[in-house]
């Protein structure tokens, strides 16, 4: 099975729910377990929230999610054209947050890593950030 989708939406916080519910609907054809759906929803929510808060710093611009299903693998690419990340390694450290005044827990990347099989972050200051996440779905047996 192969399937692709692309979603583009404004970086407003109400769209966090829209994004994760849409991705959950897209992956439904993979016959995921409830837990797999919840894991992916959490990871999507983290990446989209990062784009809104950190990438665009509250300004309203576009976020895109490209989804791809290939056999049992789900791949999601979440991209913004925001400020980018200076030091990706540091940004991914648990409990690190660039915005402590916003009461961020610093656990966004930790949750993405915990709930997906693989995550890659690429970013250029001033150009934006792309997060690619992969997860094998439906391995829980027929």
């Amino acid at each position, binding site marked *: 099975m192969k399937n692709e989708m692309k979603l583009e939406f404004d970086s407003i*916080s*109400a769209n*966090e*729910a829209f994004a*994760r519910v849409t991705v959950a609907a897209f992956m439904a054809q993979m016959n995921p377990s409830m837990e797999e759906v*919840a894991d992916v*929803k*959490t990871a999507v*929510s*983290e990446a989209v*929230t990062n784009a*809104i*808060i950190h990438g665009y710093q509250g300004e309203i611009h576009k976020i895109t999610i490209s989804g791809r299903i290939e056999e049992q693998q789900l791949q999601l690419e979440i991209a913004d054209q925001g400020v980018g990340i200076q030091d990706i390694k540091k940004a991914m450290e648990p409990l690190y947050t660039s915005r402590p005044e*916003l*009461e*961020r*827990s*610093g*656990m*966004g990347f*930790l*949750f993405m890593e*915990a709930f997906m099989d693989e995550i890659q972050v690429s970013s250029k200051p001033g150009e934006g950030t792309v997060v690619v996440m992969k997860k094998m779905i439906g391995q829980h047996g027929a």
Partner: protein
Amino acid sequence: MSKNLEMQTEQKIIGNTLWIKVPQELDHHSADQICREADRLVRERDIGEITFDFSDTVFCDSSGIGMLMGRYKMMKALGGTVRAVQVGERVGKILMLSGIRKIIQVEQKAGGKTE
């Protein structure tokens, strides 16, 4: 933009406890609304404890953790406490992973395997 973005979160003050019903989905969007409202009430009223009731909550991400940590710090500074009650399986997993159980009292939903 308009009024319909206002919170649908229920809250009440019982004695000196601020009880907040957490919505079904706790993310950056809903957490922000809850924080604003909770902080206002803590400023205006004599609150010694905030109880977050998770009985309806089936989704929580790191913004929910940020909300709890922030309220914990605020209440600790005032000599008060924060509790999370009626926590279901999924939220329980997120709270466990975050390590927040070390600083905040978490009570699981009775019966365990619901939702």
